[in-house]
């Protein structure tokens, strides 16, 4: 008859197993200690703030700034001035309830502290909200520049880039050099406030986020996400045609 029970370990076997288990736990402890020592030693020269990050949280309410008037000091985020009611957030699908609604008035500063005023009365406005850390913005902004280079931008359309959701710990910081050197952006830029008031007031649902305003300041179209060269042209043409 076969014995179904496992063989009883001898005291020597049991002692051997205990020793092995002990060495496993000691080894594991040594790995943890070594990892801690290595982390402390090899990150010693790092700036504390350089590896951890602050999420680019966007507040749920907008508000006014102290923008307008003369210049301010150069900075990656600048105060903005918003007038009028904020737009409702862009819905994920379906008709946009903000179309035909008067958009908030927006003014502020560029990275160098020079005043930037968004004035639809001078011609339709295309606001392009961009986040430097967003991979989709990093793909779409060059497409927008290619669109400009193509010469197909409708006459009289004022394009303004709005850099927002700035995080010093994320990729492609600072946004000033990101826009200038990496994206080669040569339309005017307005730097959103540190509290991201402008992008909230225009109801962004994602990045990149585009708002097209008619000459009376009402919303003609809003969208978020990449469109590519052809998509940008089609969307802008459709928005401007809807105003006619």
């Amino acid at each position, binding site marked *: 008859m076969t014995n179904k029970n*496992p063989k009883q370990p001898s005291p020597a076997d049991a002692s051997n197993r205990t020793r092995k288990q002990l060495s496993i736990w000691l080894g594991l402890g040594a*790995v943890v200690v070594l990892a801690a020592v290595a982390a402390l030693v090899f*990150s010693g020269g790092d700036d504390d703030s350089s*590896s*951890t990050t602050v999420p680019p*949280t966007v507040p749920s309410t907008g508000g006014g700034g102290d923008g307008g008037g003369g210049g301010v000091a150069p900075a990656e985020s600048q105060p903005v001035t918003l007038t009028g009611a904020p737009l409702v957030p862009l819905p994920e699908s379906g008709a946009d309830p903000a179309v035909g609604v008067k958009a908030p008035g927006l003014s502020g500063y560029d990275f160098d502290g020079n005043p930037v005023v968004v004035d639809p009365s001078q011609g339709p406005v295309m606001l392009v909200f961009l986040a430097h850390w967003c991979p989709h913005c990093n793909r779409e902004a060059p497409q927008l520049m290619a669109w400009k280079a193509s010469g197909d931008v409708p006459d009289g359309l004022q394009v303004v880039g709005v850099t927002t*959701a700035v995080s010093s710990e994320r990729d492609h910081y600072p946004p000033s050099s990101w826009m200038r050197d990496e994206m080669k952006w040569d339309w005017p830029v307005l730097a959103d406030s540190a509290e991201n008031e402008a992008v909230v007031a225009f109801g962004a649902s994602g990045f990149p986020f585009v708002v097209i305003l008619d000459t009376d300041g009402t919303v003609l179209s809003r969208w978020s*996400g990449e469109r590519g060269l052809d998509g940008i042209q089609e969307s802008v043409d459709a928005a401007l045609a809807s105003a006619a």
Partner: protein
Amino acid sequence: METMSPAAAIRFFSLLSLVAGAGAIAVVVMRLVPALRPALGALRDVAVWLAFAVAATATLGSLYFSEVRDLVPCRLCWFQRIFMYPLAIVLLVGAIRRDRGVRWYAVPLATIGLLVSAYHYFIEWNPQFESDSCAVSVPCSVPYFREFGFVSLAFMALCGFAAILALLSIPSQESRHDEQESEAAVAG
């Protein structure tokens, strides 16, 4: 941990996750290569405890980054938490009770967690597969950091789930005896 700088903490958990990932690969290789199988003998009795240690470390690390360092978890991070946190409890109870059946509860959790982590890590490098825009608040496709150029939080979770699955794939002492007896019966 409060005294550890953020940079050091990220490096510490990154190193631990690399050890876990390397360990998972080593266990899988030892399971697949018959000549190396005896080397797993030493791990047999402590595999569930080790799996618990991995799950507990991952849980504490996750809580450290969100509660101490204020890194808000993204949507996919939450899904991974849903599968990792219970593992710490289930594996602890299983280890204390020496319950061979703990694998039935832990393996499904770890497998689903592994798949979510793998997908999360994939879209971190290929954001266009998630959507065509970044979420305004906490986008899943934008990692908070990439230590050594590739270790993100999703990668850490991936290594943790893989290590747990690898450890749970090691037959227990009793299973091993059953296997040996079956082999002997077949041979006899």
